[in-house]
């Protein structure tokens, strides 16, 4: 999945003033690359990821998914892309609290119309891959923070997406579990050839990324360090 942006801009109105969260961003992300986007809090990282991940619509500019202009895609098709081709990992994991670990991972499979058996088999495999095979009937609140993040990653991988978008995935983790998460994302990128786009403050992610961009006040620049 190739992602390209052209003059991508997102403005928000806060009270009477207007904030440009993402300002004329031109970006090209090739298949199977590991991209890190770094920048201080409020610099526009999450907004950029939401635009790339088709969660949000730009004020100006365009996002291309495999040469297709996303602004021309229907809302239904955008959802299908989010469901089948993009996996999201959130800083606060965003697991559904009333579902078990297994059900959380089964959910995208169920939404994709997979049979009950397929859902169960796939979710079990993914959870075993992230070393949570023995925690499948636990609720999110019964897990450690590191375990929750691994469940979130397993959920993001459920429909074998071509791209994983992770918004500060190590932001809530201690250094040990942060390293495990980074290793997991790196493995996914290298073994599955999945594009990984990470917004982060974490230097360790920057170290493993193929390309790092810096975003400050909505303006993106290639990090050459």
């Amino acid at each position, binding site marked *: 999945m190739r992602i390209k942006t052209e003059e991508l801009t997102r403005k928000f109105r806060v009270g009477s003033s207007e904030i440009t969260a993402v300002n004329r961003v031109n970006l090209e992300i090739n298949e199977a690359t590991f991209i890190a986007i770094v920048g201080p809090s409020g610099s526009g990282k999450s907004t950029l990821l939401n635009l790339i991940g088709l*969660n949000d619509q730009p004020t100006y500019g365009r996002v291309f998914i495999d040469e297709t202009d996303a602004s021309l895609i229907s809302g*239904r098709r955008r959802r299908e892309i*989010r469901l089948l081709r993009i996996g*999201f990992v*959130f*800083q*606060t994991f965003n697991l*559904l609290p*009333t*579902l078990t670990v297994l059900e959380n991972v089964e959910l995208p499979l169920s939404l994709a119309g997979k049979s009950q058996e397929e859902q169960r088999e796939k979710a079990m495999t993914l959870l075993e891959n992230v070393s949570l095979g023995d925690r499948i009937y636990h609720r999110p609140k019964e897990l450690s923070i590191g375990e929750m993040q691994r469940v979130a990653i397993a959920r993001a991988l459920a429909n074998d997406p071509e791209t994983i978008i992770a918004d500060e995935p190590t932001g809530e983790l201690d250094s040990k579990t942060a390293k495990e998460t980074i290793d997991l994302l790196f493995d996914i990128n290298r073994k599955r050839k999945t594009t990984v786009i990470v917004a982060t403050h974490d230097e360790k992610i920057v170290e493993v990324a193929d390309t790092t961009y810096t975003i400050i006040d909505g303006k993106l620049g290639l990090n050459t360090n």
Partner: protein
Amino acid sequence: MCLRNLFRRRTRTFLCILAIALATMSIVAIGATTSRYICIIKEMHIYFRGKVVVVSKGAIVIEAFPIGGFGSLPQSMAEKVQKIDEVENAVPMLFIYNIGGTLEAFPKNFTIGIPYGNWQVLVGPTPLKLGGHWPSAGSSENEVVVGSSLADQHNLTAGTKITVNGYNLKVTGVLDTSSAFLSRSIITSLDLVQEMYGYHMLINMIVAEPMKGVEGEELANKIEAEIENIEALTEEERIDLAQPLISDIETWVLGIRTLLFILSMIFVTTVAMMNISERRRDFATLDAIGAPKSFVFKMVITETGLMGLLGSIAGILLGSVAAILVASLYTGIPISLFFLSIFDITPPLLMLEILVSTVTVSCIAGVIPSIAAARMNITEALRAEY
């Protein structure tokens, strides 16, 4: 998933279900009580079919029966009616509507006096239970036949001695009927009822059967033309007399039911709106992972529908019990006897109707919250949690 979402906020869900249950309970209790009385009134349509009922002018009549103790007629009036050419047969009757106390609106039982041998004018083909017989004129005892509900309540069988209004009576038979009216009746000879209730040579209704080929209306007109200060009511007129009462009751019940449904709807909508505002991140997550809007919409509707379902089941159970309590309070029949015939008090069709209505109303109440949840701005919802 929906059920778990609901029980994530136990207290609020419980209170919402309780409110629906209370509203449903009121609807069931009012509906069951009124429908039972409407049913009794309508059931009275079957009595004296094709015949003309003569009562005193100004008497309050429900269907064929004069109530309230007003408007008695001299017994000799029956002979006058009998003498009219178009009359095949005229049977005088004394109908006593026994209320338990001065403040009670509904009768505990009915006592009906009929001349010996004319019982079928009232009961038609209704048989007596095995071993019973109708009171006989030659008996030295005060013989009566009682309805099955009274017999069950007081454990009466043929041969049992009872005391009514200070008179010692002997039960000679039990009517084998499920009719709400006949099952609460004491039927005996006209002269005995006159004596027991102080109506010496008085009656309060005459049932006149027209000659073959004579229409009821024609006979009624003839009777009214020949005898003063009476009303001769045809079958249609008797039904018409009860109709405004039935319509009033039905209108009030409908009004109360609508009001309770609206209140339930407001309550469910409020609780559902509170729930979705607290679950913004969940909905945003569902949106981000590609869940269709219809999935979120259905989820919220199902949750409100479930609240309605649980509330209505609880309400129907409570309402049925409340209806029994009301019926028992008004009739003096022990609650235990009503439990055996719970589906007579709250008919299954009424239960089903209320269940379906409540679930439908709850689902409708979930429409606005469902739309709000499905239309939630994903980026704002995700950002708000960070």
